[in-house]
């Protein structure tokens, strides 16, 4: 069972208290964008075997969204951080690098 800490309210809870929201840091493409960009935004998933940055919602708690860095093979959570950012903060990247040197996820490393 995953144990996550919500960065909004500071509560640490089991995964039943949260709800996964899929891949994080999507760049949105709407009307006017190319078909390829729109398709990739909607459907192309990184779906990595390893480090994954994703969205979660504390739906049985404060109800707010946040981000988490997690390993999809070991289920280790490297850290959580607020949703109000377009890229993972440096301390999260450092925390992942300590455990998974040389990692990369989309354009981030």
């Amino acid at each position, binding site marked *: 069972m995953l144990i996550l800490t919500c960065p909004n309210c500071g509560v640490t809870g089991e995964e039943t208290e949260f*709800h*996964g929201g899929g891949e994080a840091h999507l760049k949105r493409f709407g009307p006017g964008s190319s078909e390829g960009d729109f398709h990739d935004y909607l459907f*192309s998933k*990184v*779906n990595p075997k390893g480090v994954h940055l*994703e969205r979660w919602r504390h739906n049985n708690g404060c109800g707010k969204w946040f981000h988490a860095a997690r390993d999809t*093979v*070991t*289920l280790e959570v490297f850290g959580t951080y607020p949703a109000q950012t377009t890229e993972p903060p440096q301390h999260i990247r450092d925390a992942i690098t300590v455990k998974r040197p040389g990692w990369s996820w989309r354009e981030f490393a």
Partner: protein
Amino acid sequence: MKRYSAFAVAREALRNNTGWDRAWASPEPKKKYDVIIIGAGGHGLATAYHLGKNFGITNVAILEKGWLGGGNTGRNTTIIRSNYLQDPSAAIYEKSRSLYETMSQDLNYNVMFSPRGCMMLAQTQHEVRGYERTAHANALQGVKTEFIGPERVKQLVPIINIDGPRYPVLGALWQARGGTARHDAVAWGYARACSDMGMHIIQKCEVTGIEQSGGKVTGVNTNRGPIGCDKLGMVVAGHSGHLAEMAGFRLPIESVALQALVSEPIKPCMDVVVMANTVHGYMSQSDKGEMVIGGGTDGYNNYTQRGAFHHIEETVRALVETFPMIARLKMLRQWGGIVDVTGDRSPILSKTPVDGIFVNCGWGTGGFKAIPGSGWGFAELMAKGYSPLTDAFGLDRFYEGRFIDESVAAGVAH
């Protein structure tokens, strides 16, 4: 290949079972094949079988990183049905179900197909309307299903509690010709037939890279050295995204863990498959007497092949409510598999951006029932570049918004 028959059993009984051959060979890989299939699970082996049987292509290697049928083929709950809503799905799943009917004879291998009937319970008004709609669609598609009332449900499944406290049974979608089969035997039967046609099944051979030249596939790198090919079929379920990345493209797929469990064996008490999608659980009884139970998927990407404990709890709670007599059963084993889920809950059988690479994936939580039909259609696609069975399941449907929305038929249990 020596044929299996009652006569062969009698003959071997007289000579102390010394005359049985190995069911399939374990050859060393050659330098090059016409076709390489990655993944020796049900879908990969069925594809190879139909490449040989329907199109005479037998210079084929099937590469498997683990052991034959050790992925989702050996981890599912063996349900076979074809009561889908959309026309393309009904076509491929019904083709598949009909191939299961004669599979034991076709392969000369007993896959224990048991058309015992498959029942999907309607426990909310919404589900009643959904399944009535499916029954009507199936009538137009030529798939024999019917919507039955609660009395008929109770008659078919005496152990069910039809006036449950939370979700009374309001009816069910009943497919009398659905059922189950022995999952391992399906993989073994295909493997034996493929090996007999001269194909190479190479186990413990993990693909580590894909070689291309001028936008066309030329071969794969493996832990047993490079192997060349003209055409490459990726049939690796949960790891499809991982392989696609090696080939340089992405798939509209996310991998999640789906789990199942079996109880201790008990006397025969339920001779149909029952699926309860509202409460997230489905159950059938195996020939050994174990109650085979399937649950829901974990709600986040993972590759762990086990699944979260609270999902088992949820499934078992739902089934105890639906079948009160199983409350004191002990559970023997629990396991998980990595399923590849697409946005519209329909599979992908398609060409890819790389010339010569074909992909068969996205069967999500319900691939076992589709094995023979998927193999039939995908072999045709690989051999001829087009198959009427797989045409609607191309990757281009995500660009064109031409989805095959099966979330009604496949929202939870599959």
